[in-house]
């Protein structure tokens, strides 16, 4: 077992364990910290899968942006003073049944599917051989093959920011 594989299993276990901790804890703030550990271990797994740009984007967008937004949301939507923000769980049994049924179906599909790899490409070749980083390839793709989705994504971001700013403004005419 190679070192990379050992690291993959360690970080995969860490991701699953902290996601389970996010589910198990009642404290919303602890759940946010569990999500933080999950996101960090997923960034490490992205690096192990030769996706360094995606890993850095994960760190900057999720850990630096989304998680901070979530923590702000926890702080702003909390009126109890001096007491932890609790989140109750309902539908434990039926939810567990649904989730395990979905996992069973997914695992069955994953294990029984016949993966047809492209001819002549092995996983070892899939690592970028001549470049150390995938940033160059992604940058070239973003302005050639994927130029239209790139622009549409920027428009979506702009519209979402405008919408979020409009929604969260206080209504003066109450």
């Amino acid at each position, binding site marked *: 077992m190679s070192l990379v594989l050992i690291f993959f299993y360690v970080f995969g276990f860490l991701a699953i364990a902290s996601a389970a901790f996010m589910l198990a804890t009642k404290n919303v703030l602890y759940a946010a910290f569990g*999500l933080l550990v999950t996101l960090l271990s997923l960034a490490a797994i992205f690096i192990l899968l030769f996706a360094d740009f*995606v890993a850095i984007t994960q760190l900057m967008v999720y850990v630096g942006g989304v998680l901070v937004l979530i923590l702000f949301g926890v702080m702003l939507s909390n009126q109890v003073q001096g007491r932890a923000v609790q989140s109750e769980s309902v539908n434990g049994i039926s939810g567990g049944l649904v989730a395990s049924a979905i996992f069973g179906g997914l695992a069955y599909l994953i294990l029984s599917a016949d993966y047809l790899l492209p001819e002549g490409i092995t996983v070892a070749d899939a690592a970028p051989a001549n470049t150390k980083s995938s940033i160059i390839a992604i940058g070239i793709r973003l302005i050639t093959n994927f130029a239209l989705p790139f622009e549409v994504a920027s428009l979506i971001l702009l519209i979402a920011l405008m919408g979020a700013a409009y929604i969260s403004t206080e209504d003066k005419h109450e």
Partner: protein
Amino acid sequence: MNNIPLIPVLLLGAVLFCLGILAVITKRHAIVVLMGIELIFNAANLNLVAFNRHQPDLMQGQVFSVFVMVIAAAESAVALAIILKVYSYFKTVNLDQIRHETDV
């Protein structure tokens, strides 16, 4: 050689997806439901990056996962704005209480 087989990565993605589904179903705090949705986005990203290794010349998987992150960031910004608005109206973010008050 440094290779991670495909199957464990896909299984890890499936486990994270189901944990996200479980969070969305069982939790009643709106922000924790949002965290579950982020977990589902991350599981999808993991699958995209894993399959990208088998067709690396086009970089489709990694580029698409970056787009998924863009959508996730936009979604969480709008969702948190909605949650704050709901909180200022109902003074709670518990989904059952909100549903009880709106009487739908």
